[in-house]
């Protein structure tokens, strides 16, 4: 009995390891927090949740002493981790901890700099090298970096500005227009190249050494919102020694995270950035609910909307209220339509709603149009039935003319 149990455990362990090898590894992450001029008590648990959601990370949170506390007591063994996520801006670490961190990165450790962590340690030279650009830096640390604004993205250029002055500012919070600058970078590959980020505070006029640094994406700091009128770097990578650093300025946390953290654009770039920092690769799929140039996309409670959620909402569908759940279904079909079995599954679910007497006319119309191209003979009975309904006849005819062409 005991032996069998051990065998099962061993097998389970082996499967986990195999799983890790086959599906992009399993990484250990450490979220460092405890002091911040931002709402770290809200953001840190969210960051841990987001990492673990990918099923690629196990994550721990470590808190430094409170402000003014004895920083000598903070000396984590960074070398145990594949990636260290900094949600920290506060007292300087001990020299011992600082040099341990530098060694960790130089030896190939991954780092994620989250939002206000680029406010931290302005006097720490090595840290400035790691983050590339930061808040509260001056001309002695390096230039301002941004992309200018033009009507055509083609004409937007990276500007290196050595004007003396303080780094760091932001306008009012607003939805941000994001543009990818390095489409082929593993973190960005496959994402829409333009998207709207949920309401956030846009860090602007950051400056720093910017060595071995790449700007993956910028966001437009709208002058109407008190912004600079420039495309400000928001996703940055640097190489420091053998280490990789991913720096996201997004994610200014409200009490419960709020739209800046609920934004699928923030979530996904954070998750992909963390994997890249840990391994140099990104194996995560782009989710179907990623935002785009016309649509912000938020995940309430940081959970992806499931197919079941969509199927529960579609029958109550009222065009004037929201088309979101129907569009979700459409996007799922587009993303998974390659598989005939998957299409058949979708069709069966759609037939159920078409047969549902409680489902709204708007819902049925939408589904009839969709099923017209992806349905099979399975759909014909219910479409015929709905053709008898005055309100649905036209949509049913539409579907039938494709499902069963006259010739």
């Amino acid at each position, binding site marked *: 009995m005991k032996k069998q149990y051990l065998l099962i455990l061993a097998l389970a362990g082996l499967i986990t390891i195999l799983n890790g090898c086959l599906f992009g590894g399993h990484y250990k992450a450490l979220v460092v927090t405890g002091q911040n001029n931002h709402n770290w008590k809200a953001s840190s648990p969210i960051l841990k949740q987001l990492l673990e959601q990918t099923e690629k990370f196990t994550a721990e949170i470590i808190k430094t002493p409170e402000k003014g506390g004895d920083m000598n007591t903070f000396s984590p063994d960074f070398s145990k981790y594949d990636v260290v996520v900094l949600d920290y801006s506060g007292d300087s670490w001990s020299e011992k901890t600082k040099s341990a961190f530098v060694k960790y990165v130089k030896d190939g450790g991954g780092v994620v700099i989250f939002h206000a962590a680029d406010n931290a340690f302005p006097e720490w030279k090595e840290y400035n090298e790691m983050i590339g650009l930061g808040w509260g830096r001056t001309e002695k640390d390096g230039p301002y970096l941004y992309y200018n604004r033009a009507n*055509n*993205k*083609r004409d937007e250029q990276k500007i290196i500005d050595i004007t003396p002055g303080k780094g760091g500012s932001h306008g009012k919070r607003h939805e941000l227009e994001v*543009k990818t600058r390095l*489409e*082929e970078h593993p973190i960005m590959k496959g994402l*829409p*190249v*333009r998207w709207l980020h949920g309401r956030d505070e846009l860090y602007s006029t950051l400056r720093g050494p910017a060595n071995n640094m790449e700007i993956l994406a910028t966001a437009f700091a709208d002058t109407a919102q008190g912004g600079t009128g420039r495309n400000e770097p928001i996703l940055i990578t640097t190489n420091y020694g053998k280490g990789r650093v991913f720096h996201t300025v997004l994610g200014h946390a409200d009490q419960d995270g709020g739209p800046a953290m609920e934004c699928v654009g923030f979530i996904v770039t954070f998750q992909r950035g963390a994997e890249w920092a840990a391994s140099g690769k990104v194996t995560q799929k782009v989710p179907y*609910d*990623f*935002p*785009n*140039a*016309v*649509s912000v*996309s938020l995940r309430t409670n940081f959970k992806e909307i499931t197919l079941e959620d969509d199927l529960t909402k579609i029958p109550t569908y009222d*065009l*004037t*209220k*929201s*088309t*979101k759940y129907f*569009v*979700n279904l*459409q*996007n799922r*079909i*587009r*993303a*998974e*339509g*390659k598989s005939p079995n998957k*299409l058949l599954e979708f069709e069966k679910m759609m037939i159920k709603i078409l047969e549902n007497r409680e489902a709204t006319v708007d819902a049925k119309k939408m589904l009839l*149009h969709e099923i*017209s*191209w*992806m349905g099979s003979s399975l759909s014909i009975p219910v479409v015929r039935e709905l053709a008898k309904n005055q309100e649905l006849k*036209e*949509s049913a*005819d*539409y579907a039938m*003319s*494709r499902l069963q062409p006259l010739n």
Partner: protein
Amino acid sequence: MIDKSTRRDFLKRSAAVATGAMILPQIIPSTAMGMGGKLPPSDRIVMGAIGVGSQGTGNMRTFLEHVKEVQFAAVCDVDSKHADNAKKLVDETNKNTDCRTYGDYREFLEKEKLDAVCIALPDHWHGLIYTAAANKKLDIYGEKPLARTIYDGRAIVSAAKKNNIVWQTGSWQRSGENFRKAVELVRNGRIGKIIRVEVGLPDGGRGVGTPPVMEVPAELNWEMWLGPAPKVPFRGISHWNWRWILDYSGGQLTDWAGHHIDIAQWGLGMERSGPVEISGKGVYPREGLYNVPVEYDFNCKYANGIELRVANSSQLPKKWGGATWFGEKGWINVDRGRLVASDPKILDEVIGENEFHTYKTPTNHWGNFLDCVKSREETIAPVEIAHRSISVGLLGEIAMTTGQKIQWDPVKEEVIGNTIASRLLTRPYRQPWNLPTI
């Protein structure tokens, strides 16, 4: 050949004289009796316009400038304000008040005796009205993209050919000097054997949410505006913005396919054929009435192995719009107001007498149409080519909708072994509208 075209020309003219004399003597303005360098009215091309919104009015204005050759007699639009404005424009040119207005193209085609018509409508109306006008044996200046579906496009081509009409597509880039030069350089091997092509089109999509149902303005015949498209209540979206809704348009992709894909295929010598394999990915608005792709990116393979990538230009490595051909010896990019090459010397190359030359138009794109109406020659943007240009965009749309790799037979114009994709070659028409069978 000369005999034949002269004869056809003659017959056409005789008919014009006859109809002019017998049925419509009232439209001949006193100012147009062959004075002041103008042709006598009976020799002028009698034109009408269907769809006189912004694009249609623009086309008509250009034709009106050819006052010596053209006489406008009537205009038609489902928006009476559009029709009234267009009539005003015609009357000002004709110095009378005789231009007739219609709200229904069927009545317009039935009552008017015209030589030619310029048509600019939302894409979902192209199939019905282009074929109806062709079946009335009217020469047509028709806006791109040729059709909303490949099936509609083929029906239009067949009707135009069967009726022997002169057709000019509004893809005016074909008459542009830099586009023609680019095509000639590419076709004559100045960048070597072509390996691949990129077409960069404008970023797509808009967001509008779902506006509330509104009262239809008195001047707009909403039922007729919708025509064969699904019946929906009016939400304030009609003119111009129809291009953001899939029932009427494929968005920026299909709007611009008629321009830059057209040029790209011309350079490849594929303008009367098409790719054999298409696959790609679109990004769509997540909410609301507008549902055309915001981003689109698809790849087409031709039988000779050449690949064509079509995407909104923000996704392309150099963010270039227009067509870029990559050959073994260099590249050429052409867009509106731009012609660049890997080596600027390529652009100074002279095309020899015995090499491939594009069609030369002594006038502009609109003038070329009028010349051809008279000569019965093929225009610079014939209907078959317009059909093949938009077909590439529409196949890309099908690949993105299904998420599948589409195998295409450009000769038979059939999707190979894929029922689902085949269904998307058409869009069902709402009764009582039906496209005449091909």
